[in-house]
């Protein structure tokens, strides 16, 4: 069983965009779904460590509550025979909430690091099935991260064309048979295509394939779109796409 290096997931970023960072409605709206999906991926990535950290804090809370009840951190066997009160569970929980709310950010990082270390030790000796479950969570994160990216690619392209059809709608779809707009599509929108061009044209491309997504952006942003196309051609986008496909089809 290989080392899952769970200590590293503590540094997984939490994504945010300040309200002023994006100005256009198309990008502001597309960013909301993307942020939600992206942070879901990193939360899944950190879930095992957070679970272990939470369990560690709760264990400390129980020890604190017991010390408070017995008046010592190391009760004797005789003291341990005293029955715990019925509301002891509530006291433990209250202590746990108190500890969580008073935890400084730096302390929180230490708790998570300690939890990750404990998990790594556990994973060295656990059954292989358990180890595989933890590795599956890592793979799931890759799938979720690609899903977030794929959704953004389609959503952003559609919204950008809806917002700015005059320059962006000079698209050449890979399927030449679908060139032009069908009368049924015009009818569907009550003969009013204002803010609908992206919605109509997105069906011309298969956004679940990276090649066609890139083609869609290259054709729409063929003028002055250097930075747009540079972002979509980054090797990390390729990596997520191919790893996701490998995991999904080959697992």
């Amino acid at each position, binding site marked *: 069983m290989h080392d899952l290096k769970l200590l590293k997931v503590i540094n*997984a970023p939490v994504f945010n965009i300040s309200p002023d960072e994006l100005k*256009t409605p198309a990008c502001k709206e597309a960013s909301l779904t993307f942020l939600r999906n992206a942070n879901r991926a990193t939360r899944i990535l950190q879930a095992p460590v957070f679970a272990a950290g939470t369990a560690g804090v709760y264990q400390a809370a129980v020890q604190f509550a017991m010390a408070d009840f017995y008046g010592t951190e190391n009760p004797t066997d005789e003291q341990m025979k005293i029955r715990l009160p019925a509301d002891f569970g509530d006291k433990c929980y209250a202590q746990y909430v108190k500890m969580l709310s008073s935890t400084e950010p730096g302390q929180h990082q230490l708790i998570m690091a300690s939890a990750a270390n404990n998990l790594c030790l556990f994973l060295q000796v656990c059954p292989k099935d358990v180890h595989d479950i933890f590795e599956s969570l890592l*793979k799931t994160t*890759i799938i979720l991260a690609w899903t977030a990216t794929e959704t953004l690619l389609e959503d952003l392209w559609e919204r950008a064309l809806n917002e700015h059809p005059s320059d962006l709608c000079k698209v050449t779809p890979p399927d030449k048979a679908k060139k032009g707009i069908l009368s049924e599509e015009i009818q569907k929108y009550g003969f009013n295509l204002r803010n609908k061009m992206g919605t109509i044209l997105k069906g011309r491309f298969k956004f679940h394939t990276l090649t066609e997504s890139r083609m869609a952006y290259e054709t729409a942003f063929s003028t*002055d779109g250097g930075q747009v196309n540079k972002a979509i051609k980054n*090797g990390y986008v390729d990596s*997520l796409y191919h790893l996701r*496909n490998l995991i999904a089809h080959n697992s």
Partner: protein
Amino acid sequence: MDSHFLEETKDVKLLSDIRALGANNPILFDGEMTTDFVGKGINCGFELLKSVDKWLIDHPTP
């Protein structure tokens, strides 16, 4: 990892270490590589958002 994956990713430099494992060998996922691919991959999405935003601002609708 199959031969299809190796062929499809032959131009993706970031996956060269993984390709080096060779066909029919499993990719061993760990927290370090997953955090790297997920974090930097998602950041590309933010770069795309910012660059499309800038493009739309620089090209106001007539």
